[in-house]
């Protein structure tokens, strides 16, 4: 897992965090990631969000090819697999 060390330094120094969270669901398991660490916001494109996630988790962006990005009213993001309705 990598995080931008300068970004962490700035956050730790200023004490400012947006408090926004990205909820990722991968293989049925959820985890929350502070959006500050990903350096993404609700205004970022889906590609930007998936690229940041892949970088953060040391994985390929291909991992999230079939995932959708949802933007919640509170500014948080959810990244989950596409649903197939029966």
């Amino acid at each position, binding site marked *: *897992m*990598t*995080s*931008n*060390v*300068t970004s*962490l*330094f700035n*956050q*730790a*120094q200023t004490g400012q*965090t947006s408090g926004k*969270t990205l*909820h990722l*669901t991968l*293989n*049925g*398991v*959820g*985890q*929350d*990631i*502070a959006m500050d*660490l990903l350096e993404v916001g609700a205004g970022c494109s889906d590609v930007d969000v998936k690229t940041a996630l892949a970088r*953060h988790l040391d994985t390929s962006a291909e991992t999230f090819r079939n995932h*959708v990005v*949802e933007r*919640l*009213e*509170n500014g*948080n993001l*959810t990244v*989950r*697999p596409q*649903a*197939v*309705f*029966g």
Partner: protein
Amino acid sequence: MNPLDLINQLARQEQNLAGSSFIAPVVPGGAVRLRVNGLVYTFAVRVRDPQWALLRTDDLRTARVVGTPSKAQIRQYAEQLPRLRVLLLEYWDGVRYGLQYSTGSKGLELEGVVPVQLSDNLDVFDVANCCFDGANVWCDSRDDSSSAQRGRQLRNELANMTPPETMRVATSTVTDRLAYKMLWLRRRPLVQVNALDTDDHTRLGRALQAGGASLESFNMRGDDVNVRFRYDGRVHNAQVDRRSFTVTSAGFCLAGGDRNFDLTSLVGVLRERDGHYDD
């Protein structure tokens, strides 16, 4: 000086240089620069690991490692350069970073995080004695004047994920606390929202709230939980695994893909379904 004498002098200098020994820090893929009477020579050095090395020149282009310098020799080398103390952090993309701990005797001040070379044998929160050659910060030893107990306590607090606001290490400095906060922030995303140290009601409530829904009620069914929740004014029932909140039964047909989702993401799926089928 006669130009011919100068050329002869340079030729003699270069002749003497071949086969001479010197000390330098080296890294794989790096080169070593040696200044002799104002002239700078660059030598390629092949090493597997970063290290302080005793080197011998093969010719005017290459040098090789012929030994390991003593601590005293390393200190003698390092003391020729501006000194600084660095509080060691962790590795990012294979590079160790640190924060300057206090101004060295020659007043060198580096801002923010700095890459630190040759500190692999030291721990996080150790203070390293370093020298700066204008491009790189090289660690030459551990600073034993800083309390080893302080570093151990900080590492313990971090292992327990004690929040920075409540972290109490009596002898910690401002730089220690800044470093601690950085590393705590780095670990924070690894903390699951569904951490099992809280009660089921709180965990379910948090998971649903993260998806924009609210908990109405729940009851246990073995390893599963039946959850009744409200989203967008609607009420829905689903069944999830009690520990991971992985969906075991979505309460509507997901073509057998129920377990691809957890409780939080199920709320978004419901909204998508409603958008598809309600109009």
